[in-house]
């Protein structure tokens, strides 16, 4: 969960690609998965993501992300089964029936969700936030202020998840029964805990603003330390990305 949206250090081919190449891939893969009506294509995209994670040397980190997507997919799966009512009834439990079309649709939707979100998450795991913001500012002329907000937000995600862990543990320790078995109870027990998280976040952000102020942030023209250029690998990768986009729309 912690590494859901954080950079994982490494030296692989994917790490070295230009941030915009990776961004293009994330967007294209997402669009392709949604545009495609073909189950095999979407399944292939999911497998491709797993292969990329393995060859990029971040498989163990990606696994925890996959777990998270697994939960999302499972929820969608159940919803689809419940709501799709046409087709042949496969299982029937009391007044409640599951159809073959429902199953297929459920499978497709959950796979499609994973297939479209995983590339984005992979991109973030392969790209240092500063490199991404530099690329957006230098190549796409997005004002630095906006890219900075995104990079800073990404940088604080692990801090916040850690903090949330502490808060929940602190409440359990004083007898707040949110460590029970019932997930609904657990969810509503955890909800008010967003207040301490909010308070400490506001404090952090205030402190961060002061720190930025003393480091010349927002002065105007900036230079870039990690200027990246497009290399041969990027062009090959981009060609591949275009192919995926075309396939996704065609199939």
């Amino acid at each position, binding site marked *: 969960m912690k590494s859901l949206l954080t950079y994982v250090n490494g030296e692989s081919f994917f790490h070295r690609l230009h941030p915009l190449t990776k961004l293009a891939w994330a967007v294209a893969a997402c669009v392709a998965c949604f545009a495609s009506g073909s189950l095999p294509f979407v399944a292939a995209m999911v497998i491709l993501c797993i292969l990329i994670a393995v060859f990029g040397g971040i498989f163990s980190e990606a696994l925890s992300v996959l777990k998270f997507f697994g939960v999302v997919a499972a929820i969608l799966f159940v919803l689809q089964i419940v709501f799709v009512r046409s087709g042949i009834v496969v299982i029937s439990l009391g007044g409640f029936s599951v159809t073959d079309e429902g199953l297929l649709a459920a499978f497709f939707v959950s796979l499609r969700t994973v297939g479209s979100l995983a590339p984005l998450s992979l991109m973030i795991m392969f790209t240092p936030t500063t490199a991404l913001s530099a690329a957006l500012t230098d190549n796409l002329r997005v004002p630095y202020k906006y890219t900075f907000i995104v990079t800073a937000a990404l940088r604080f995600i692990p801090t916040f998840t850690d903090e949330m862990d502490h808060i929940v543990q602190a409440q359990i320790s004083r007898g707040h029964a949110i460590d029970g078995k019932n997930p609904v109870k657990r969810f509503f027990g955890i909800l008010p805990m967003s207040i301490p998280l909010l308070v400490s976040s506001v404090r952090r952000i205030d402190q961060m603003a002061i720190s930025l102020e003393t480091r010349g942030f927002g002065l105007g023209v*900036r230079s870039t330390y990690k200027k990246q250029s497009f290399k041969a690998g990027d062009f090959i990768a981009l060609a591949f990305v275009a192919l995926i986009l075309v396939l996704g729309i065609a199939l």
Partner: protein
Amino acid sequence: MIEIDNLTFQYNNSDRPALKDICLHVEKGGFTGIIGPSGAGKSTLTYCINGVVPHYLTGDFYGSVRVCGLDTVDNGCMVLSRHVGSVFQDPESQIVTSVVEDEIAFGLENFNTPYDEMEKRITESLEMADISHLRHRDTAGLSGGQKQRVAIATAIALRPEVLVLDEPTSELDPEGSASIFETLSRLNHEYGMTIVIVEQKVMLLSKHSKRLIVMQDGRIVLDGMTREVLRHSEKLVELGINCPRVVELAGKLSKNGLYQGDCPTDVDEAYTMVTDILRRQK
């Protein structure tokens, strides 16, 4: 280097001044410690030196603060940040990027430093803060002490003449705190950097600082050479300040007529004191 004259400051949303009639002159190359109970105005004083007050945190500002010849009212934080490096209490909220070298580059980029110069400064400041080996590490995975060193490296990359630190060791263990102080002493001795530091750990501070300032309720109540200030043990206890235990011991001994001499400030001096007392008795 730092000239504060008759400074009174009151935050906008506050009903009483956080600083009252402060006069403080700090020489180039000094190592000045600031101690005092919480709410005394220590952090506010550091904000006045790096220009956060009155530019970012606003309020009623009377008197004058000049740092490296620059008036802090006329010159914003940005201009001052080339002269004053700042390190704060919580290392977590000072780090904005995910890789150590990017973090140091961040400030340099803001000042539009050319690439070659950046490369040189990053290497240099990592070395000065003793963390060259962390250059390519992930910032999220560092320990508190390492993060605090990154914050120091980040500040000194802009080559400031003054380094202002606000309780930089509060989250660290004794060894981690001591090694931060050793790094600061080195910056002070080898590079002549002027150091101003707010710290609760009086015993550690007194080992390194040349000058000690005690604040209470917005005022400077004691100011002098570290050893001189520490000798006012009664005053320190009255202010609720943690004075070194050997000072406390000497206080107890002299109160009960067992000792009349100068108050010791470290273990060696205390040893001399105790052996004298015991010898005299024999």
